[in-house]
């Protein structure tokens, strides 16, 4: 094997190593040996079966939102608003859980449907702002994220405040039948895993073999020639964003009905932004999403254990994943360091 070929095979591990070295150095600077620090993270993620289940429970909503984002990225859309779509989905599911009483499994079904509907509508607002108002989806989405979070805080501190009052933390716990059935004592719901697998399959088939998938790709590659081919950019933009919004809303429902049992102040806590990183790392390949999302979930769960054991801030996990994604983005392909290609960087923003 030639040296060049070996280098090409080893290249993908380089960003991982750089991320580990940088976080390791940070640990040293803060007086924790990397062995202890990374050991705590590994223990926290995989130390015993209950921790693995916790990683899996945290993983499902990240992966759901990421799968949705593959669709919007394919259409060339920056759906930063995914965070708000998760939050609004959580609010809608909570609304059904708190205010309605349907018989048996109808209850949770309606919660999930309400969450997907609300997520799709919230994303639709971003889409309309873009197509009709020429507000770039980054700004529309970001503003709507903050509005959704503020709305949550309003509900928790106002109309949905628990009767004992005073808390700014969450609503009363939902009744048992309004929650997803959980596996053992864990917070993982097998039904949510099934829904995730279904979402992966649907999006894979959609982008691989459907006419709509082809139209989205055309839109993402070159909006102006897609228009000449008869692809309505407005229609596909709205549909792609709403599709992603529905999956993000589902992620929000999973958060309130399995990870938590009520609507909380930081109900998403940045899962949407994390999902954006997952998708960037996957290079938009939907079958890779579950694995990358699981890795992210493990790192973040591990860093919470790190904080408990060493008193170091848990943002170290975010630094590790952030550096990793940055390195892959910048130096992902070895050849690209030398090659001159004509590909344009980004598309012209139309704000």
């Amino acid at each position: 094997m030639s040296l060049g070929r070996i280098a090409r095979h080893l290249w993908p591990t380089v960003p991982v190593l750089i991320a580990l070295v940088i976080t390791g150095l940070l640990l040293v600077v803060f007086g924790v040996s990397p062995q202890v620090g990374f050991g705590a993270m590994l223990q926290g993620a995989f130390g015993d079966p209950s921790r693995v289940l916790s990683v899996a429970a945290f993983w499902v909503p990240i992966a759901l939102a990421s799968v949705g984002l593959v669709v919007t990225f394919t259409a060339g859309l920056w759906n930063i608003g995914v965070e708000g779509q998760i939050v609004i989905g959580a609010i809608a599911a909570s609304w059904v859980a708190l205010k309605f009483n349907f018989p048996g499994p109808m209850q949770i079904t309606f919660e999930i449907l309400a969450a997907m509907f609300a997520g799709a509508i919230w994303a639709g607002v971003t889409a309309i702002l873009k197509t009709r108002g020429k507000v770039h989806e980054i700004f529309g989405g970001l503003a709507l994220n903050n509005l959704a979070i503020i709305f949550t805080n309003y509900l928790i501190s106002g109309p949905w405040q628990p009767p004992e009052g005073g808390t700014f933390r969450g609503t009363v716990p939902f009744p048992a039948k309004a929650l997803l059935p959980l596996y053992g004592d864990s917070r993982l719901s097998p039904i949510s895993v099934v829904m995730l697998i279904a979402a992966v399959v649907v999006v894979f088939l959609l982008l691989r073999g459907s006419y709509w998938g082809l139209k989205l790709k055309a839109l993402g590659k070159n909006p102006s020639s897609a228009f000449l081919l008869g692809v309505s950019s407005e229609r596909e933009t709205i549909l792609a964003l709403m599709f992603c919004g529905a999956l993000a809303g589902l992620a929000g429902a999973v958060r309130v009905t399995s990870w938590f049992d009520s609507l909380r102040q930081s109900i998403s806590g940045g899962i949407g932004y994390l999902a954006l990183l997952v998708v960037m790392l996957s290079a938009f390949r939907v079958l890779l999403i579950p694995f990358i999302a699981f890795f992210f979930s493990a790192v973040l769960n591990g860093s919470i254990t790190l904080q408990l054991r060493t008193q170091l801030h848990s943002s170290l996990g975010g630094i590790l994943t952030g550096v990793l994604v940055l390195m892959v983005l910048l130096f992902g392909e070895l050849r690209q360091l030398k090659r001159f290609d004509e590909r344009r960087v980004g598309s012209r923003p139309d704000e």
Partner: protein
Amino acid sequence: MSDSELVRILSSIVLQSTPLAIAVCGETITERAGVVNLSLDGTMLLSAMVGFVAGLLSESVWVGFLAAAGVGALFAFIIAFGSIRLRKDQFAVGFVLTLLGDELSAFLGQNYTRIPGQKVSHLGIPLLKDIPILGPIFFDHDPVVYFAFILVGITWWWMFRTQHGLRLRSAGERPEAGFVRGINVNRLRYIYTLVGGSLVGIAGAAYSLDIKLGWSEGHTRGLGWIALAIVIFGGWSPIRGAFGALLFGASKALAAALQRSFPEESVVVFNATPWVLMIAVLLLVGSDATDRLIVLAPRRFQSRLRQLLRVRPPGALGTLFIPGESGGE
């Protein structure tokens, strides 16, 4: 409301808007050269933290500002290098840096939260501050405020009244046209992205060392995104951008004044003000509806209204320029 109270409110709006105006000015320079630095929110958080800690340890606000400018320049360099040299998506790199700056500021600053530190000292300008009404509003502040005035003025003059500014704008507007006139487009983009990024860093430190004194996790979160929106609302002009910053400062002061007369549980709703305003101003300058409204106005005002309300991004914003090929668009 008495006169003196109104003057006090206006004076505080000017003060509160200052860091935002500095950040907007920096990003305007960057985008005029054709590069989008999307990382503002993370850059400001990290530079606010680094500026505060550097100021604390060295007991000098100057060191604090210098360190903050360095952080801003470093992030800007990563974006410039990534997009110009490596030809990677500058939005993606900028977004990752946004998150990374946030996480780094939380981690590196974890032992420095909620403690007293250095503060820029007050400096009323003699004579000018004694002018009735205008004096207290504009000239009885900290030096950071005067820095913003001067910065906005100089940037405007540089951009629109000098040869350098013409080259800067050509790099962002029609890079191929600049190229045939012998301008090294990509070198200019590097330089102005770094200059813009340093200013964003200074804006972050202007919060932690003066206007929003101290450091805590998420100290300036959200403000970077607002600055990015103001750049668009400001039509990529430093002076209009400064007015945009004042508008956001004023809305905040207004919300603060209003919420006193509302019941306590609805106070959180006022946090929504900047985000609603963000969508509103972007709709105003972007949507076709504004055009339709302008047509309803008396004809002789139409062109002036259009100039006032409509904006157009630099022609080659966010695109790659490869010398010798028809870059830009």
